[in-house]
């Protein structure tokens, strides 16, 4: 392909954010390409950046936003307000901030214009062929697939009876390969060089879900790229005589007319004198009507942040020593477990990214394929497998797995052959009928029986992860030191439980969205096991001691898994627990069982269709119910991240809304650990936060819509109905119920306890952090220590904020 055309493709595609397949769902900020732009300056057709003014006013009426919040937001966003003298409104003198708040409450806002992009004329043909090409498990493999998407499509489409005869003839005259075909199509469509990028960008925006997925695939699988896709689209336009469109430029959006005088007259009232109206208008000119929603949003977030800071004043002390230390993922769902566990003063908890600092590609014993259990920010470099601890049982398991695999394969083949499905239905229909009935009526029993049957055929065997093969000793020591310094763990209990998390649900294609984001949308069990093995490694401990991090000889690390639906915590690899610690592990398990019951009931209060009064069995049965669309609420409600010692938050109910990362500056003399926290877990938390934010505000464009009409395409993604764009983002059932939002769309409030100079230096050194903080994608608030004042990060330096007090003023 001509280098210039390739450059045009790259230019057109650079704002496309890759979307992970739904089977390994990774939350991303769908507008990440705009992070170098101020949040409120983004212009994306069909995308809402905030709630609407009527929704904010509803929150105001309910006391969720107060007048004090609005005043603070106005002062924060419009520093010029401070220079204004009180304004004579004709009735009384009011501060400029109050005048602006009055205006926000009174002024009329027209209904937002629906600027959704028009439908795609090529949708039917493009979706049909692209889906056939990328389907990982098709009935028939697409012939010629090895030549790439465009070439394979062209070979088949020449014979496609759905295309008119003339179109097929024209297609046969186009080049056989994507690069030359793209050039030929641009020429045939008479696209000028200056317009090429705009035309290609418009083609990529026509089906943004498919485009985002293909970008991911080009970066990870490499069997398709966007040049192929664009060649196919433009070839269709050429052969069907369809005109191209040019992507609109944000600059061409019509300016909004601001009715400043009318707004001022409204505030001055019918008796208002012309001078009063003019004085009010002078103030209102600071705050155009189109900016109101962003001030409302700042007030909405400010109210939550003030309440959070206020709550931190009530934190309780951490016990001087603990019998058990539990390290859990920063995921907000861990907060509830930690709070309940700490009701026992002998338990101390820590927060750390759920991959426990051990990024791996994992292949289970006897398993097929491998999973990348690591944050999406990293490329896998260490392959970890399992070694069976009992060879005899391992052989039996392998035989059983082979038998199950063969049976599944035979069933699949029989289902998909031409004639055999009829015979299959005749022979086994009664069995599947009964099975479906039991699955519907008694889902837990069905699950138990299926599991027992599977365990009978292929009995589980104890294994150990193979860290020594995957990491050199120096790598293990580096990871262990980084982990301890990042979570501020320098005093050790006899038992340290590294607890990953995973979710259990049935018939849920978005299952991986409920698993651990730091583990690439997988359960965190294997990372916890690998980390425990590293921390228990004698060689690692010797070198850590030389670096000032001495782990006592009688301290044992064990791995565990938190099931976020049942809230149970299962200790993994019990065969590796030394006899000296089995009693401590048993005591922890008993405590965790009580906590699980308390937390399931607590969560039931928020879960649609659940009631805290229901039996625990019924509440937990949601995990196995194939009709349940709300097995749990995932990370709905996430709003903040706190980086600091547990003393900041212990004893406070944070409502499972906060990412909690432990950190102690005294364990991190160089500041490297804080840098790692702010450049990795914070980035992942921000991705998750914005995924929820935009899915809640834009369920039709940046969210996946309702689950009830989803059709799955392999493990790639879902369509709403039988065709159309591949849906992006989270389903409506992750962020709302009925017409009501379950998730409050709040941008992430980050609170850090560490020296301000250190934080500032880290932000200054990193372009992504600068973008996020300077452009209002997140807010950063910090204090040097528990007794210091809170400061807010601004592009001009730290700004001290007054002692937080949550004003209870209502409308």
């Amino acid at each position, binding site marked *: 392909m001509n280098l210039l055309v390739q*450059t045009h493709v790259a230019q057109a595609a*650079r704002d496309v954010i890759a979307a992970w397949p739904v089977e390994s769902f990774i939350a991303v900020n769908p507008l990440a390409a705009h992070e*170098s732009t101020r949040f409120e300056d983004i212009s994306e057709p069909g995308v809402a950046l905030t709630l609407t003014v009527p929704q904010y006013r509803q929150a105001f009426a309910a006391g969720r936003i107060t007048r004090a919040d609005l005043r603070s937001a106005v002062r924060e966003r419009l520093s010029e307000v401070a220079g204004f003298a009180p304004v004579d409104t004709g009735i009384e003198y009011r501060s400029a901030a109050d005048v602006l708040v009055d205006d926000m409450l009174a002024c009329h806002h027209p209904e937002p214009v629906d600027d959704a992009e028009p439908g795609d004329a090529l949708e039917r043909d493009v979706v049909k062929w692209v889906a056939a090409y990328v389907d990982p498990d098709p009935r028939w493999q697409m012939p010629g697939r090895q030549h790439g998407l465009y070439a394979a499509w062209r070979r088949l489409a020449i014979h496609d009876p759905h295309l008119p005869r003339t179109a097929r003839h024209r297609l046969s005259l186009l080049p056989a390969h994507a690069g030359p075909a793209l050039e030929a199509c641009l020429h045939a469509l008479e696209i000028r060089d200056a317009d090429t990028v705009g035309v290609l960008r418009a083609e990529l925006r026509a089906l943004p879900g498919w485009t985002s997925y293909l970008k991911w695939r080009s970066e990870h699988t490499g069997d398709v790229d966007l040049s192929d896709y664009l060649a196919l689209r433009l070839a269709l336009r050429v052969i069907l005589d369809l005109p191209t469109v040019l992507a609109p430029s944000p600059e061409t959006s019509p300016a909004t007319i601001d009715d400043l005088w009318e707004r001022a007259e409204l505030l001055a009232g019918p008796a208002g004198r012309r001078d009063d109206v003019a004085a009010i208008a002078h103030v209102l000119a600071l705050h155009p009507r189109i900016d109101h929603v962003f001030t409302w949003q700042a007030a909405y977030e400010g109210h939550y942040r003030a309440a959070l800071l206020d709550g931190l004043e009530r934190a309780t002390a951490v016990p001087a020593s603990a019998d058990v230390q539990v390290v859990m993922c920063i995921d907000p769902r861990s907060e509830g477990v930690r709070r309940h566990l700490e009701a026992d003063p002998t338990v101390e908890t820590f927060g750390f990214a759920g991959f426990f600092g051990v990024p791996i590609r994992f292949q289970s014993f006897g398993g097929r394929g491998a999973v990348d259990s690591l944050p999406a*920010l990293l490329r896998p470099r260490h392959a970890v497998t399992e070694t069976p601890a009992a060879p005899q049982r391992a052989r039996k398991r392998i035989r059983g797995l082979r038998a199950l695999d063969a049976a599944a394969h035979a069933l699949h083949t029989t289902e998909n052959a031409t004639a055999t499905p009829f015979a299959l239905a005749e022979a086994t229909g009664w069995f599947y009928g009964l099975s479906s009935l039991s699955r519907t009526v008694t889902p837990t029993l069905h699950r138990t029986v299926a599991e027992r049957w599977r365990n009978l055929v292929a009995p589980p065997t104890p294994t150990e992860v193979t860290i020594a093969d995957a990491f050199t000793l120096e790598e293990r020591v580096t990871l262990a030191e980084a982990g301890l310094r990042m979570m501020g763990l320098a005093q050790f209990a006899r038992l340290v439980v590294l607890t990953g998390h995973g979710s259990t649900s049935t018939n849920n294609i978005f299952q991986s969205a409920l698993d651990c984001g730091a583990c690439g949308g997988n359960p965190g069990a294997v990372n916890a096991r690998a980390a425990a093995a590293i921390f228990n490694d004698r060689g690692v401990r010797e070198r850590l001691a030389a670096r000032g991090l001495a782990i006592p000889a009688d301290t044992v690390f064990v791995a565990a898994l938190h099931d976020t639906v049942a809230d149970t915590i299962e200790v993994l690899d019990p065969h590796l627990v030394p006899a000296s610690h089995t009693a401590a592990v048993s005591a922890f398990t008993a405590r965790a069982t009580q906590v699980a019951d308390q937390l399931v009931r607590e969560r039931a209060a928020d879960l649609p269709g659940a009631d805290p009064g229901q039996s625990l069995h019924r509440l937990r049965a949601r995990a196995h119910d194939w009709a349940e669309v709300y097995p749990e609420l995932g990370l709905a409600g996430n709003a903040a991240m706190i980086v600091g010692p547990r003393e900041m938050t212990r004893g406070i109910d944070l409502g499972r809304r906060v990412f909690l990362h432990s950190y102690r500056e005294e364990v991190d003399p160089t500041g490297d650990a804080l840098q790692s926290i702010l*450049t*990795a877990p914070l980035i992942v938390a921000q991705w998750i936060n914005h995924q929820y934010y935009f899915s809640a505000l834009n369920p039709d464009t940046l969210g996946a819509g309702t689950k009830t009409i989803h059709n799955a395409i392999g493990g790639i993604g879902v369509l709403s109905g039988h065709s159309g764009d591949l849906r992006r983002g989270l389903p409506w059932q992750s962020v709302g119920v009925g017409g009501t939002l379950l998730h409050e769309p709040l941008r992430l409030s980050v609170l850090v306890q560490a020296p301000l100079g250190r934080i500032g230096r880290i932000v*200054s050194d990193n*372009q*992504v952090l*600068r973008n996020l903080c300077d452009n209002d994608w997140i807010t950063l608030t910090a204090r040097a220590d528990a007794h210091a004042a809170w400061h807010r990060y601004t592009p001009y330096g730290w700004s001290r904020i007054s002692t937080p007090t949550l004003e209870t003023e209502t409308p």
Partner: protein
Amino acid sequence: MHGMTAMTKVEIIVPARDAPGMRDLIAAAGATGYTSVPGVSGIGHHGQHCGALLFNDVDTLTMLITVLPHERAGELIAAVRALLDGRSGVMFVTDTYVSRPDYFQ
């Protein structure tokens, strides 16, 4: 110069997430290879850039270095300029000399 062969050296520093696109362009321009240096640090138009990060391969800078004959360099330089337009990143072009020209043809 001591029997060395004159060629063009192109050095590009871009955010790591933009590096694959640049590598594709270098390959498409007919360069026979390149050197990739991840996690470069320094100060530039957009401020400071720290070096490699422990748990983030994406939000750092990558430097790509390639050498190619003069006649093939022009097209690559024009393409990289276009791709850098409005984005973070810089390109340096210098004359250089190589001892094994056949490696770069």
